[in-house]
């Protein structure tokens, strides 16, 4: 453990390129991931804005963009989902914050494999460029949705965008899988091998637990998606028939025979469901860390939290069939998947109870990071409670593929995860950039974003109950959807306001980077190792020495201690666990 740590240290690099572009420093790589995700989220958000506008003004001609046709809408939808899931929700919480803070929080000088780490980032970057390229080729971006169901995705003549655009889409995802596998290996090895002396597994901050389990999920899930993607490329380009049976497209008999459209769904969701937890687990870790820190109270039920993360990770691999209740899969297996899905609700509920328990008899400081952590809990509850509806096959009959599902996953894996990232940004910004973000604008940003988010996604439940199917570019063709138009218009207006309010965050971020007040080494009076080192941390994180850990991560309000918090490195003798 601690002995091997020193062997991984490497000398501080000289020169701009080695320092900031092809850096081996996990901190620089973490920030690179965060900026990549920030770029991706702005693209993804812009696409969703165009979609919302098209939904309520289908014939509007927009400046620069022109008229959005139904096929354009579907391309926007596909790219919005893919970019958000892969390049934002997977990239920032794990690749970004995980990269920067996992090594520091366990007292390591860097990741176990710094070169692999650099390679992993630049591979992700290439994947992103390939994905964006799909917009600019003939036919444009694919229209098969982020789930890319075959045969729609496997045939080159099933619609516009399904030629080169779809090939680029699959290729990008395959490249992304390779990058994520490299990252996952690095995270797992680092956590297991590079912990400082005294940093036992059960003294790791819950953020580290979350990143560690997320990495294991990534290792097991991305390999499957990679294989699935390669088979899809073969079906598309070499005439194989993994996913395509004998089909006739617009009167033309295609050459495929004997493939199974359901095979793609099984492989995709075998990845896709763990992916949901890959997106949300780091957010859960951040919420736990921040609730304890700002409540000035130890986390309620640390071990229960760890076991809950493990249970979520394990169960996350046996629930994928709940995406397929209406697919033609055996109704008996639907039964099994449904029970397992209900089971995964239990550890999620345990986490919520523990977060509330942490706030009980606390002394809560409401700085911006804490606001976002509380917002995370609220959104996690709201998004989580629609789960038991969708987990029941019988209720999935009316709700599957309606706006109800869109509401569910946006609340929980979309905005809850993004609130986790906002919380992490406001919390760790001082450590990363040596300056504080503006508190007033942080609060204003929080209030608008929380209310706006609910105004966008809560009404989508009602739309889904009223049977509004998802992925409809316009609602002009179905009579029963007409009375839902006022609600759709309301959602679009709220989306315009909420997206607009994100300018506050962007300005605050960049302004504070250069003009914010200087941050001290431990501005939030936190206990974990990143706050024991200087701000920003030196190249080897701890300036030549390796920290020794004496306590668990959340020793707040310890009776008899001099301050209301005990750092993990404070020598024993202080009464704390």
């Amino acid at each position, binding site marked *: 453990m601690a002995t091997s740590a020193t062997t991984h240290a490497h000398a501080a690099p000289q020169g701009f390129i080695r320092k900031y572009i092809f850096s081996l420093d996990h901190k620089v790589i973490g920030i690179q991931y965060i900026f990549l995700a920030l770029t991706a989220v702005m693209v993804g958000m812009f696409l969703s804005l165009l979609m919302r506008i098209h939904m309520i003004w289908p014939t509007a001609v927009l400046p620069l963009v022109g008229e959005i046709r*139904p096929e354009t809408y*579907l391309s926007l939808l596909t790219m919005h989902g893919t970019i958000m899931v892969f390049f934002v929700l997977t990239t920032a919480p794990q690749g970004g914050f995980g990269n920067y803070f996992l090594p520091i929080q366990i007292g390591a000088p860097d990741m176990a494999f710094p070169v692999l780490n650099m390679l992993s980032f630049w591979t992700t970057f290439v994947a992103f460029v390939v994905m964006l390229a799909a917009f600019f080729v003939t036919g444009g971006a694919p229209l098969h949705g982020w789930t890319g*169901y075959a045969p*729609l995705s496997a045939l080159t003549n*099933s*619609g516009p965008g399904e030629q080169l655009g779809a090939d680029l889409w699959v290729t990008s995802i395959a490249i992304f899988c390779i990058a994520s596998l490299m990252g996952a290996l690095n995270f797992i090895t680092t956590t297991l091998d590079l912990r400082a002396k005294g940093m036992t597994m059960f003294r790791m901050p819950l953020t580290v637990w979350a990143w560690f389990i997320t990495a294991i999920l990534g290792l097991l899930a991305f390999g499957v998606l990679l294989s699935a993607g390669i088979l899809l490329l073969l079906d598309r380009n070499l005439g194989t028939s993994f996913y*395509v049976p*004998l*089909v*006739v*497209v617009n*009167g033309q*008999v295609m050459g495929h025979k004997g493939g*199974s*459209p359901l095979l793609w769904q099984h492989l995709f969701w075998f990845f896709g469901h763990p992916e949901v937890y890959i997106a949300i687990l780091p957010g859960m870790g951040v919420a736990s860390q921040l609730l304890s820190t700002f409540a*000035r109270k*130890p*986390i*309620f039920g*640390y071990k229960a939290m760890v076991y809950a993360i493990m249970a979520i990770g394990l169960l996350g691999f046996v629930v994928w069939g709940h995406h397929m209740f209406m697919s033609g899969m055996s109704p008996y297996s639907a*039964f099994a998947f*449904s029970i397992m899905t*209900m*089971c995964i609700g*239990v550890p999620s*509920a*345990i986490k*919520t109870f523990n977060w*509330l*328990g942490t*706030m009980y*008899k*606390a*002394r*809560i*400081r*409401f700085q911006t990071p804490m606001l976002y952590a*509380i917002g995370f*809990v609220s959104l996690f509850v709201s998004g989580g*409670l629609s789960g*038991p*509806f969708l987990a*029941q*096959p*019988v*209720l999935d*009959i*009316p709700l599957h593929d309606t706006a109800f599902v869109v509401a569910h996953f946006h609340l929980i894996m979309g905005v809850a995860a993004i609130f986790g990232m906002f919380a992490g940004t406001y919390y760790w910004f001082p450590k990363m950039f040596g300056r504080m973000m503006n508190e007033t604008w942080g609060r204003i940003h929080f209030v608008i974003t*929380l*209310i706006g988010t609910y105004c966008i996604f*809560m*009404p989508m439940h*009602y*739309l889904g109950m009223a049977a509004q199917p998802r992925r409809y*570019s316009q609602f002009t*063709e*179905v009579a029963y959807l007409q009375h839902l138009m006022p609600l759709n218009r309301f959602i679009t207006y709220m989306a315009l306001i909420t997206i607009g309010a994100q300018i506050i965050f962007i300005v605050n971020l960049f302004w504070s980077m250069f003009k914010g007040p200087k941050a001290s080494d431990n501005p939030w009076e936190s206990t974990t190792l990143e706050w024991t080192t200087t701000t920003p941390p030196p190249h080897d994180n701890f300036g030549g020495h390796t920290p020794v850990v004496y306590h668990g991560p959340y020793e707040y*309000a310890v*009776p008899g201690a001099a301050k*209301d918090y005990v750092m993990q490195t404070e020598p024993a003798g202080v009464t704390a666990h």
Partner: protein
Amino acid sequence: MGLVLLAIIWLITFFSTYFFAAQTWWLPHGVSTAAPWIDHQFALTYGLMGIVFVAAQGALGWLAWKYRAEDNSGRAEYSHGNTTMEVAWTTLTAILFIGLNLMGSHVWASERFEPAKVGSVPVEVTGMQFAWYFRYPGNDGKYGRTDPKLMDPSAGNEAAIGLDTADPAAKDDVITGTMYLPVNREVDLTLKAVDVIHSFFVPSFRFKQDAVPGLAIHMHFTPTEIGEYEIACAELCGLGHYKMHGMVHVVSQADFDKWLAEREAEK
């Protein structure tokens, strides 16, 4: 700020719950034998989840306000948790979630585990970009052969699904673009797709099932009220997904027989 949080969270909870409870936007009127069962399970789930939602959000807002630190003096309670409470809420949640699931399972079983009963009305549904076709096997009760090479979507009906008129069983097959069903008779549905996956969704029947190329999926349901109901495609199938729309006419048995006879006569 604690008070602001309490206000925001409670207001969000109030408005969200109000529109659920007032049923301002709700499931469409259900007109199949399964609809009351599904709606009952929906109402039960929504009641229980509603209680948990209000309790959790209420507690979150209250805790934020109640335990706000007005200054940096004083300390929180030093506690690492409570194992009894952990066990209690784990058990309760498990009972609630799994129990709820089991309560709805008989509806699923009756819908999907048993085939259609003898004497039900056979209808074959074929989805293609971007239309639904409905086939009735005629007096012989047999669907005639179809051939992918004969499919011509632009010609519609028989030609669209590639009906092989050389097959004697095909002679009395009726193919239409609008679905007719007799009221209160079970429908023995066969779902097919020729190009990509589509999903046959009739909200009023509480019925949805994907139509998958390469598979013939058998389903059954019983409409219970005369009327016209909309079919929407619920699986992304290409650029015309949003307009892959159809109608079901549920009519009396006499009207259904008359309609079918007229179609036979037209052939």
